[in-house]
């Protein structure tokens, strides 16, 4: 943990009610410690902007430990920046060089309208889950947990799919703004478990339909989503979703 400081030029997307079309503004970020996270760097810039009487940059963030899925921005053209399997809050400034220019933009997708600056509305992802991303059991009356054995391998595959944090980077990275990795992850998680079997058919049909209706695009096998997913969700989840969908559609 040997810290040093670097100076950066930021080009940040600013969009608000007074400037509904939005544009890039340039700011200097000086004396940035390389131990800072990317969001802490924005905090420092925001403190300076506030002192200069400029409204701080609006950005979503919450847990700052890479699990809540609230943060995210396109950094130099990459969703969550250039480090693999890393959310924006876990991207650290030691991965940038002194004198770098960094372009910071919001997720861009028809289904994610910009709220302000880097903040977008990802409510469409909740709507996909509402369409069937659950197992229909009420509280109370569940049988003993150990009466449902699940092969370790399947449990682990289900876990890997369930690790999705719903940040929306897959949509932002996709040239078609497709939500197939997100939807595939949830369909796979539940399809891999015996508990998920009874509702599998309805789930696959209904979630895929919702995804289409909400304005997300289709998959053309670019695999950009997998490359940018901070949780390493694999596009095999999309393949599994397609199998589940076809199985459901033809049975």
């Amino acid at each position, binding site marked *: *943990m040997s810290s040093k400081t670097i100076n950066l030029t930021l080009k940040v997307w600013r969009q*608000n009610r007074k400037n509904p079309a939005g544009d890039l503004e340039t700011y200097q970020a000086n004396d940035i410690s390389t*131990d*800072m*996270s990317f*969001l802490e760097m924005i*905090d*420092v810039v925001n403190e300076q902007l*506030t*002192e200069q*009487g400029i*409204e701080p940059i*609006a950005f*979503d963030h*919450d*847990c*700052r*430990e*890479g*699990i*809540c899925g*609230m943060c995210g921005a396109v950094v130099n053209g990459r969703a969550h920046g250039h480090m693999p399997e890393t959310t924006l809050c*876990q991207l*650290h400034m030691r991965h940038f060089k002194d004198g770098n220019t960094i372009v910071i933009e919001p997720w861009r997708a028809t289904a994610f309208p910009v*709220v*302000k600056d880097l*903040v977008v509305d*990802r*409510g469409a992802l*909740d709507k996909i*889950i*509402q369409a069937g*991303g*659950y*197992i*229909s*059991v*009420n*509280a*109370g009356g*569940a*049988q*003993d*947990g*150990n009466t*449902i*054995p699940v*092969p*370790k391998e399947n*449990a*682990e595959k*289900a*876990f890997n799919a*369930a*690790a999705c944090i*719903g940040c929306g980077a897959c949509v932002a990275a996709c040239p078609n703004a497709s939500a197939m990795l997100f939807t595939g992850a949830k369909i796979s*998680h539940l399809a891999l*478990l015996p*508990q*998920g079997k009874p509702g599998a058919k309805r789930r696959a049909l209904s979630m895929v339909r919702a995804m289409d209706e909400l304005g997300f695009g289709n998959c053309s096998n670019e695999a950009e989503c997998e490359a940018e997913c901070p949780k390493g969700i694999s596009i095999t989840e999309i393949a599994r979703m397609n199998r589940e969908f076809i199985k459901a559609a033809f049975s």
Partner: protein
Amino acid sequence: MTLESKIPSGPVHEKWDRHRFELKLVNPANKKKFDIIVVGTGLAGASAAATLAELGYNVKNFCIQDSPRRAHSIAAQGGINAAKNYANDGDSIWRLFYDTVKGGDFRAREANVYRLAQLSVNIIDQCVAQGVPFAREYGGLLDNRSFGGAQVSRTFYAKGQTGQQLLLGAYSALMRQVSAGKVEIFPRREMLDVVLADGRARGIVTRNLVTGELESYSAHAVVLATGGYGNVYFLSTNAMSSNVSASYRCYKKGAYFANPCFTQIHPTCIPVHGTYQSKLTLMSESLRNDGRVWVPKEAGDKRPPEQIPESERDYYLERKYPSFGNLVPRDVASRNAKDQCDQGKGVGETGLAVYLDFADAIARDGREAIAAKYGNLFEMYEKITGEDPYVTPMKIYPAVHYTMGGLWVDYNLMTTIDGLFALGESNFSDHGSNRLGASALMQGLADGYFIIPYTIGGYLAGTRLPDVDASAPQFKEAEAKIREQVDRLLSIRGKRTVMDFHRSLGKIMWDHCGIARDEQGLEKARQMIAELREEFWENVNVPGDAADFNQALENAGRVADFMEFGELMVKDALDRKESCGCHFNTAYQTEDHEALRDDENYCNVSAWEYTGPDSDPVLHTEPLTFENVELTQRSYK
């Protein structure tokens, strides 16, 4: 008002069953006539909202984030306890109950804790049925591990992401009810007041964080599940938006606040590394199952860890507590880490860290086995620090993590305001003065899935509730007051930012009301907070407009409440003239530097009543009786 805990009579293991039978029921056909507001969508809030909707109530569910799935329960790593005894190692409901009462240093209610232990087994079943992908053995059955403060393996887990998986389970149940039309979700709303009619909670006022509009919502009952107040310390492992405002504003409307000074400092966090730091990151204490905590024997030894031979290392937890070793409860582990650093044995650049070393575990079990258990935690550590814990021992230091204090509630989880309930971390009831690892998730879900669905029915069935709608004058009054505060915050345009004030407040709280406390420091803190608060209202710079998405304004309101609440914490700490669990007053300690309780005078719950901005809060106490677990000095030797 006297505090009536409403604990049912009878032997502790029969109380909940008897109470469930005695509670009045709402006829299934009548449930749809009741509207219930649930604030918060973490484990407690989401499970409550989903379950109440399943029963037929109409639920309005509010959250501060853009989606209910982001609540901070999601960050819980290690696991959830349940007395299943799948490991066949002597666990039972009684043992989980006993461990929790003792772990909480005898400042929790026996009846509540017993109920929690009973319900723990139902939670696991419910979560498995929902498809929560818990870790499993090769035979397909559920796997368990041991956790700090316990000598049995009763912790269920999903890698280091147990909170995430449990929350996604509750969230999926919630989304199912949204789809069924029984829950309406209000994201990006911050609750800024509770509204009373005829002395009962009948609604809330929120600020729409996108438009800035104030919105009023009425209901027949209000359920608060708004989490803890660890961010009063500025640096904590809490998410950035975690705050005390919803609870604090209920306190100002008449809900008593219980044990505010009980704040848990978690022993295994990544140490502070700079003044710009915005938050601290927890490393699950499950790491203490395999990691060994040590410091150099000599103070001031600045050699890198690999150059310090075995004979010159002090594995101080194993030395001092041979039977629990590295698995002592959190308060004990935190205090010991601070002691070592105070003696000059701390490691790293700042000297405020101790080693958590996996070398022996890797040599014993192999790198692959350790990676399977802790891989994601090791990766997270490396991302933040740039150091590889497979090669170099982790550096850890205690950080604020959880708050045992919260709104006072009775056995039905109802606050001192009729019709206002508090669940999960936002209430005070189950963890006493120290929470054991893997118990927070258990409590949140027990409250939401299995307690509130019964107790709220008892309230609604037994209470006459005339119609109140959101256009009632009480709502307009509350809105006007909030508007006034918002306008005032925006009109100051001073020189210091909100974050700057928050950082100053946090430093006062950490220095004087943190791991160790003393009367002099607490008195000093009280004065410093009062001065800081005065300066805040003269010199804070809140940019932007009220009718807009304005994060500085959101934070300003939260910090303003923290400034008042911090003083209440200090007052509570001053008043409790003993040490217990996490509340360690240096004047009260045993010869071995352990917390020394005063059961004669302080075997009670402190519940504070708000009496106005210019007068001191009034203290009410609820005596605690221990009929099943003998009051003893805790020993982990």
